[in-house]
């Protein structure tokens, strides 16, 4: 630091050397799979980008059923660089969720969830769920016919859940259908509730990662690995990757700004061949596999229960994979992970093409 007076002032009050010591004492193992370590950092960077662009958009967005759509058009057409920041927010969200999935499957296939890191997995998984809800709630704020239909389908699907479905649906919609009440609720979720929960969970997730240190894949655990200091070696590599990711997001935002659809009309029929965001496609395709009625029971309810069961199983993998916890090889869970990944990719591709 080149300000000796400021340094002295801070050192007099805080243990600066101690904090520096903590930062310098963190080491990261180097091995052939260490590229996966950077996916978490990229996701964090994209979250920061989303917070910044979201704050800018919040200055001009009007969360009212009569003005929401108009305010979006004004942001895009009248504000200087408004189109760019809206597009950046859109592509930042897509990339954040993409990297969350990459980070999730990387963690799964490297068995980084195994004992004692179960809570790191749990906080990360909850963050993924919150991010998807971030996407859905942000989508409705556009208040165009596609967003309206997507939220109607999503909240309707939640309503098919037995016992608590009705409550969840009513809680999300705030009314019997998707209305201005829903818009206001989703706005509150998107700009206040979810960011607070996300910040707390990111803090806890990072704290747990610092506490446990970086996980090494079981196949490399017995090898003597070289360790490099996090600061500055890994930090500099992180910065380089973040810069490239920023470049990609900005390029996508400039070359492919998202279109603005027709204003939502609750009385109009849903538009034809409507598709949700790409991260919901595998769910939609799965629901389509089920018939309307199975053994006299509602097919949609059975589909929702099956999907929920599969997601719950995925969430509980660290607690079910006992062999990994004991430090043994567990090929069964590797294959389960590969199956989930292939299923996700294939169903998303089918959803795109159909």
């Amino acid at each position, binding site marked *: 630091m080149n300000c000796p007076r400021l340094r002295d002032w801070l050192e007099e009050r805080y243990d600066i050397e101690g904090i520096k010591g903590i930062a310098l004492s963190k080491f990261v193992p180097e091995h052939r799979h260490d590229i996966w370590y950077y996916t978490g950092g990229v996701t964090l960077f994209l979250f920061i980008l989303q917070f910044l662009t979201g704050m800018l958009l919040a200055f001009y967005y009007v969360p009212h059923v009569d003005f929401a759509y108009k305010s979006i058009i004004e942001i895009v057409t009248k504000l200087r660089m408004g*189109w760019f920041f809206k597009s950046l927010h859109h592509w930042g969200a897509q990339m954040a969720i993409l990297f969350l999935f990459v980070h999730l499957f990387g963690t799964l296939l490297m068995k980084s969830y195994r004992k004692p890191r179960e809570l790191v997995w749990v906080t990360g998984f909850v963050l993924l769920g919150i991010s998807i809800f971030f996407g859905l709630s942000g989508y409705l704020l556009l208040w165009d016919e596609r967003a309206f239909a997507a939220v109607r389908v999503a909240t309707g699907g939640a309503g098919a859940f037995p016992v608590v479905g009705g409550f969840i649906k009513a809680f999300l919609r705030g009314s019997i259908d998707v209305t201005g009440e829903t818009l206001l609720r989703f706005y509150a979720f998107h700009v206040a509730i979810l960011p607070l929960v996300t910040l707390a969970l990111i803090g806890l997730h990072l704290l747990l990662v610092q506490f446990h240190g970086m996980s090494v894949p079981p196949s490399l655990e017995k090898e003597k690995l070289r360790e490099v200091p996090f600061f500055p070696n890994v930090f500099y590599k992180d910065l380089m990757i973040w*810069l490239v990711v920023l*470049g990609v997001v900005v390029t996508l935002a400039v070359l492919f700004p998202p279109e603005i659809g027709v204003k939502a009309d609750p009385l109009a029929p849903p538009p034809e061949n409507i598709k949700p965001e790409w991260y919901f496609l595998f769910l939609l395709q799965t629901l389509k596999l089920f018939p309307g009625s199975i053994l006299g029971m509602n097919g949609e309810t059975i589909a929702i229960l099956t999907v929920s069961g599969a997601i719950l199983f995925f969430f509980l993998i660290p607690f079910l994979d006992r062999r990994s916890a004991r430090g043994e090889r567990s090929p069964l869970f590797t294959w389960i992970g590969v199956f989930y990944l292939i299923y996700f990719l294939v169903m998303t591709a089918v959803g795109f093409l159909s």
Partner: protein
Amino acid sequence: MWTGHLQKRMKRLLNRTRLAAAAATATLLLWTTPFGAAAAEKIAVFPETPYDGYIVYESLIVFWAAIIGLVVILRMKLKEIERTQSLGADREDKDAPLLE
């Protein structure tokens, strides 16, 4: 009789003009009125004038040049740090004499 014939012709011409005007108006209306939602005007989500578009693309190229420059600088810095670390010069010598 001649005047009556002229009146008839004038009336016919007027009717034809009215018909043509009505057809033109209808065509104009059909052109400008959207057919429901599908024909709704597309909202411009990118600067419309060629000059503004050019500025945006030019800025994107400059932005990428800056990113590549920064990545190269960081890479060079990292190489230098790794070289220093491999020599062991980054470790603090506790017994080193202090220059006042």
